[in-house]
């Protein structure tokens, strides 16, 4: 009996690694501290009422951002552990097995649990405000999307201390990810964690398409929408076509592993290559899903901080949509070296190159937005300016990779690593940072310290180049990705050491950002204007932070930069908008079902991972029960009385 308990415990908990013991202890202490704090200050009720059951898009956005920043920390620590292992030849800091787990989790976390939620956070915080709406189209679904994402992410992260992390690479190619080669539960954590959060992502895509198409303020024609809203639309369209592929692919892999199917194993008639095709049919559009909103953010910021209209609006819209469609026709460039037919290779090489055209056009449009403008260099603009050279270089190395016969030399090497980090950090991460800095005062009602922000910007940026430029040369010198160690004889030592130093500089940049937030919370500079950057779009016309109903009166938006034009008219003393009477506002009600249902998904996933049907089946019943209960909930809405709205408006605008 004792023996079997011991055996179970050794499989259940990850043992034998001091790093992981350290993490277990710190996770334990954090949990205890969290529970103790909430209990001591009697905040459980508050947490449940104000946050867990909320359907307010702004609060959901804030929770997405917090979760994403925590995941950025986790993924960043993973990155630094890897760079430490590679700092010097023959390092014995991490074992190969541990190294494999770390690069697998680093990839998954950064793309799916950092970039995606940070993007959804910005969708939620900004889109309804920019289109003059009071919420998203489906507030309940929105809350469910968030909790599914969070439960999926927690499940995935749990594998770190329970059962062992997945170690078959971030896209888990079979046969390596099949039971024969990866018998541990790590790969099951991967399947279920991504699957659960992926369903949430798909629903968010649907939610925002409907929100944008149906809920715009009167007067806001499609071609008058802010560019960020266009980019969200492009990204959401890509999501609804790409994510079902991921769902099916992971479901098939799950069937292989859990029920002994043979979709992707040669024995039994399956084909691993089918998985690789399917996963990249999702995986390639996925990188555009995360970069398109960043393009939208840069468009907003460039225009605001140059005090000038966005140049080439129609070009921009056309470019966004072209990228969103063509992203589906390039997936095979991820495996040019599989030895397929030359016709296939030539087709995918050319389609890949074609994406460079609309992307290049956007860069010129941003440059000419600044041209004949008046540029100021606050932190959101700094990140935008830092992005341009970084993304141009990264884009060009992407074009180099698309030259198929040359790709036979770049593939699987550090050249590739340098390229995609350059576009994903320089494009996506810098873009989302720029967006966070830009909309921070609107969301939280206070501005961030500019000086610490500039320190963060420069350490991140310089760190980036120091870290990734050497990797292009390492790739050309034959260093393959995912190598956990190398000898002195290879001659890779100086460049790897430089790269590691750069990695730690970026870590320092992150510390500056945390410091910046902490400092700004402590010495809060309230944004009393609601429009700290002299903005152009509707979100800047309401007070900061936005009241729960967003707009006391739904605005009229007849121009592309509606708020900017309105401010111009006001300065000239022209009054066009007649004062509308304030009426009671219809709002969606809170609900605990999204949270409870997501917890049921978590339980189901955990049960299946361990093959515990006594746990999985009740979980599934719980999910069904939640659906049933929700479908019979008819009365879940309320009105904010006109008096309350008037009072709130007067308080926020300081006219009390």
């Amino acid at each position, binding site marked *: 009996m004792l023996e079997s308990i011991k055996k179970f415990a050794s499989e259940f908990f990850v043992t034998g690694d001091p790093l992981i013991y350290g993490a277990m202890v710190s996770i334990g202490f954090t949990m205890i501290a969290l529970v103790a704090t909430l209990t001591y200050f009697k905040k459980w009720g508050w947490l449940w009422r104000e946050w867990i059951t909320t359907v307010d898009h702004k609060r959901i956005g804030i929770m997405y951002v917090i979760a994403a920043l925590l995941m950025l920390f986790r993924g960043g620590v993973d990155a630094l552990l890897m760079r430490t292992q590679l700092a010097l030849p023959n390092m014995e800091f991490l074992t*190969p097995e541990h190294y*494999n787990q770390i690069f697998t989790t680093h990839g998954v976390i950064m793309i799916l649990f950092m970039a995606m939620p940070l993007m959804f956070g910005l969708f939620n915080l900004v889109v309804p405000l920019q289109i003059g709406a009071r919420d998203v189209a489906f507030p309940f679904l929105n809350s469910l999307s968030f909790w599914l994402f969070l439960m999926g992410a927690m499940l995935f992260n749990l594998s770190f201390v329970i059962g062992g992390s997945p170690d*078959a690479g971030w896209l888990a190619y079979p*046969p*390596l990810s099949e039971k024969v*080669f990866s018998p541990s539960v790590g790969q099951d954590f991967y399947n279920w964690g991504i699957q659960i959060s992926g369903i949430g992502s798909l629903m968010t895509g649907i939610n925002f398409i409907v929100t944008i198409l149906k809920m715009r303020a009167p007067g806001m024609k499609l071609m008058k929408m802010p560019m960020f809203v266009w980019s969200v639309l492009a990204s959401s369209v890509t999501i609804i076509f790409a994510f079902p592929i991921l769902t099916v692919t992971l479901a098939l892999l799950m069937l292989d592993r859990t029920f002994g199917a043979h979709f992707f194993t*040669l*024995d039994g008639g399956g084909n691993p*290559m089918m998985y690789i095709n399917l996963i990249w049919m999702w995986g390639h559009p996925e990188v555009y899903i995360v970069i398109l909103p960043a393009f939208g953010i840069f468009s907003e910021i460039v225009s605001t901080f140059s*005090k*000038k*209209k*966005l*140049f*080439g*609006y129609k*070009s921009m819209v056309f470019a966004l949509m072209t990228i969103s469609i063509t992203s589906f026709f390039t997936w095979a460039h991820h495996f040019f070296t*599989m*030895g*397929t037919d*030359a016709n296939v290779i*030539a087709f995918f090489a*050319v389609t890949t*190159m074609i994406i460079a*055209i609309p992307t*290049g*056009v956007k860069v010129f449009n941003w*440059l*000419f937005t600044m041209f*004949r403008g008046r*540029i*100021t*260099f606050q932190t959101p603009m700094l990140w935008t300016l830092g992005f341009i*050279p970084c993304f141009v*270089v990264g884009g*060009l190395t992407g074009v*180099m990779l698309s*030259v*198929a*016969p040359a790709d*036979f*030399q770049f*593939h*699987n090497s550090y050249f590739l690593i340098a390229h995609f980090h350059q576009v994903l950090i320089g494009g996506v991460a810098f873009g989302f940072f720029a967006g966070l800095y830009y909309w921070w005062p609107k969301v939280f009602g206070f501005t961030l310290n500019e000086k610490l922000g500039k320190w963060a910007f*420069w350490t991140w940026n*310089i760190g980036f*180049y*120091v870290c990734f*430029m050497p990797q292009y*040369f390492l*790739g*050309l*010198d*034959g260093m*393959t*990705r995912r*190598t*956990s160690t190398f000898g002195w004889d290879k001659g890779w030592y100086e*460049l790897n050491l*430089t790269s590691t130093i750069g990695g730690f500089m970026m870590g320092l940049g992150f510390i500056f950002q945390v410091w910046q937030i902490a400092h700004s919370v402590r010495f809060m500079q309230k944004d009393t204007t609601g429009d700290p950057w002299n903005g152009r779009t509707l979100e800047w016309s309401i007070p900061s932070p936005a009241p729960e109903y967003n707009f006391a009166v739904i605005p009229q938006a007849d121009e592309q930069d509606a708020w900017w034009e309105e401010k111009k008219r006001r300065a000239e003393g022209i009054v066009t908008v007649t004062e509308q009477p304030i009426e009671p506002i219809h709002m969606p009600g809170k609900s605990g079902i999204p949270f409870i249902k997501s917890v049921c998904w978590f339980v189901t996933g955990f049960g299946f991972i361990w093959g515990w049907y006594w746990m999985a089946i009740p979980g599934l019943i719980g999910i069904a029960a939640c659906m049933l209960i929700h479908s019979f909930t008819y009365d879940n809405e309320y009105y904010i009385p006109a008096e309350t709205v008037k009072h709130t408006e007067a308080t926020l605008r300081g006219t009390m």
Partner: protein
Amino acid sequence: MKHRKWYKQLAFLTTWIVFIVFMTGCTNPIVLDPKGPIGDQQRDLIWFTIAICIAVLIPVLGLTAFIIWRYRDKADNKAPYHPDWEHSTKLETIWWGIPILIIIVLGTVTVKYTYDLVPAKPIASEKKAITIQATALDWKWLFTYPDQGIATVNYLQIPEDVPIRFELTADAPMNSFWIPQLGGQLYAMSGMSSTLYLQADEIGEYLSSGANFSGEHFGKMTFNTKATSQADFDAWVNKVKLDSPVLTIDGYKKLSQKSVEDPLLYSAFPNKLYEKIVTKYSAHYNHELSYKEPNSKPSHDHKMNKEDHENMDQQLEDMPAHHGHH
């Protein structure tokens, strides 16, 4: 005052980039220092793309720097300010047009090279190509030389100036066979055989690796490829034939288990070993390496199995010299 600080930091950044470029300038990266005809063409293509990229990069970065400097918000900035200027058909035609032209040029060159450099395309040479079969195992490379009758693990010796016809497969998770100085990589996948032609023009030792992640110790799948003169190659083959042990089917089964190996040499290997590895999963074949081992099916009697073996061997004999890939 604020801006001066900004430029100072930019100067710092530039210094770092220059430093890194200089540091790497001391050693020529091996991909740009090829020693064979395939690698040569790939290097030319890479330099061509680098040239195009630099031709795009310099004007764009220059323009960016100029615009940022000229239109910065300063009280005494005399540059024009047109807050509503948002469209110019002429300008937009230029920057839709130029990238399209560049991509047409680059695309044409790429398509041409794609057909020229099909991995399975034989290298033109007066000398007859020799075949080497490479099998990716957990976590080592097995090389069988069907013409010479020898086999090696994690060590490759080839004659210079002779085209080598590599046949690649795997009896483990997919890997990728890469000798950067001779030419680009190709995937080695179980259940199929792909062909890659490479050639070394110079005597030397070349870094070689399994480039695709295949599990715990895939990093140990690097080895040296030694290119020697034809005479030295022949002498080496003879020496291996005299001095080294034989690789048996049971020896192969042991070798294919998970392990990390130093270089090994074998004077002989089982007949059609490579073909048996490739067809291991094909349901209608039944031979010593079949996934469905004869003894795992008790309903089959011994005689049946023997017949199956003979059928299988006959089929392998009839097979064309090289498998196409799908």
